[in-house]
């Protein structure tokens, strides 16, 4: 891999013994997952395998029925608001931009709450984040309802980056996007990871994203989780993982991976 990091691999986020259930239905059965500082980790799984529930658990939005999540060494539900905001950024699947605020106001909202920067400085930083997310500065004035799908994702990414979080969670960052926009987002994720050193956790169905961007992939199947590099997962005998990685769609993604690694 091109991204051989200097960081000694240490988990920035560590979940252990996670159990989630709804009524009698168990979604996760004692799952453990370590996210290493500086890596890009993919979380994959079929529909209904509990990807979103896991994401909610890892970000502290949902308290698991059992088990604990340590963020930066501390239990996630004991972190203060400001501390948590400076550690975690989340890109929600539909963007979740506040519809009554302009894009720039969306980005400045966490800065206004958690820092004492003067407004002019906040605006400068917001413009930088927009540019970083690949949006022109004029977009800042627009309302979320005036943006296209790809722009919503980028604007939401700019907001997730507002406080320079250590970990960025991306929920289906490339869903509903055309291939060009999706590749753009993939490249952006890699660039942010390499330049800013942000740890990235991607929940995705998109095999191309999983194969080309992620250094390790966590596969959710059968209430359990299997974490490994794509190459090793390819050799897995677990039937669901095998089908997932060897289907017709996987072939195209595999080619994309070879292409990306051949040229990059």
């Amino acid at each position, binding site marked *: 891999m091109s991204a051989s990091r200097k960081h000694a691999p240490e988990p920035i986020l560590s979940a252990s013994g996670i159990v989630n259930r709804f009524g009698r239905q168990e979604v996760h059965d004692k799952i453990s997952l370590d996210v290493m500082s500086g890596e890009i980790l993919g979380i994959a799984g079929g529909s209904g395998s509990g990807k979103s529930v896991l994401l909610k658990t890892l970000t502290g939005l949902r308290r698991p029925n059992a088990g604990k999540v340590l963020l930066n060494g501390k239990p996630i539900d004991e972190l203060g608001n400001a501390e948590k905001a400076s550690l975690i950024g989340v890109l929600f699947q539909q963007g979740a931009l506040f519809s009554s605020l302009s894009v720039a106001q969306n980005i400045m909202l966490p*800065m206004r709450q958690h820092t004492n920067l003067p407004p002019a*400085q906040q*605006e400068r930083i917001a413009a*930088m984040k927009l540019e970083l997310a690949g949006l022109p500065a004029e977009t*800042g004035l627009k309302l979320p309802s005036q943006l296209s799908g790809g722009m919503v994702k980028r604007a939401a990414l700019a907001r997730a980056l507002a406080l*320079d979080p250590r970990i960025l969670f991306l929920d289906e960052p490339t869903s509903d996007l055309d291939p060009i926009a999706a590749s753009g987002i993939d490249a952006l994720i890699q660039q942010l990871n390499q*330049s*800013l050193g942000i740890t990235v956790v991607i929940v995705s169905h998109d095999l191309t994203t999983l194969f080309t961007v992620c250094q390790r992939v966590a596969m959710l199947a059968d209430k359990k989780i299997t974490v490994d590099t794509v190459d090793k997962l390819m050799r897995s005998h677990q039937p669901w993982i095998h089908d997932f990685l060897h289907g017709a769609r996987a072939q195209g993604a595999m080619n994309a991976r070879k292409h990306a690694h051949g040229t990059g």
Partner: protein
Amino acid sequence: MPTPHIPTAPGIAVTGEGNQLALEGVLDIRTLTAAETSLKHWQRAGKSRALDIGKLSGIDTPGALFLCGLRGKGVELTGIREEHKSLLDLICGLELKPLAAPPKVPRWRQLVMGLGKSADETWHDMIDVITFIGRVASATVHALAHPRSLPLPSISRQVAETGINALPIVGIMAVMISVVIGYQGVAQLRPYGGEDFTINLVAVSVMREMGVLITAIMVAGRTGAAFAAEIGVMKSREEIDALEVMGLEPMKLLVVPRVIGLMIALPLLTFFADMMGLLGGAGIAHSLLNVSPLQYLDRVHHALLGSDFFVGLIKAPVFAFLIATVGCMHGLRVRGSAESVGKETTRAVVKAIFLVIVLDALFSIFFEKLGW
């Protein structure tokens, strides 16, 4: 001006003197303001200045933005650590434009423009309402003319939701209103020795006006808002588009059952409110005037004409049509966002109540001329 050690906030420190300064600590969104104020004078003074950032243990993107800004002003950044290089390259490489500011318009022009805009909007709004009323009327009449195609289940559900579920609140309000009128009547008429006429006052005003008006306002707030929000959310989730693509008319499927349902429910509610109003009147008569319920009934019987009852009741379906139509119209006007649903719901309620009262005034004049 040689400053040996510029004081700074915890987290970041500026060391060195003259044109050669060094930053130490962490330059991030929290320490940025401190660093900026410390370096404010320095960055303007003198030439060939250099800033050693080798001792910075951490830089985030706002910090990098600040450093890039310094570099742009001719400050040389020295001792850049390997791990900060790519971040600085990325941020300095961005084509940074200031956030576009909304165009500035003088206050008086804003005022004039706002006036013109709202006049224009009101005009279009009026035309929209009239057009929509026409469309709904034609669709409703068409539906009634083809009773086989009437969506009876959804009409009955609307009657239940808008009528039966509103019974308690409408009943209580009607009793309260007759209590209010009764107390005022007794207080005003007693000096003339005519407090007995309070019974006539309560009976006639509840029958002709208050019963239907209170019910209509209540329903406008309750059901008009519900219609606008229900249809608005459907619209924002593209469900209306889905109906149209499947060749189903939202007008027929969503609007007509609501209109017909409310036109059935509101007269019934009004009748109920009238009765409850009379009941409240009986209570007042008994407690303030010592008139027994039987005597009260007798008095009411003589005080009321048949027309009083019908004048009140005949307004109910008209109000119902208006409330349902305005609610549905604003629901269909929703565009995209959640905020829009809220806005249109508010407008629907305000407009429905406004129209109900305006129409009630017109009815009063109309019935006066007819001599009813």
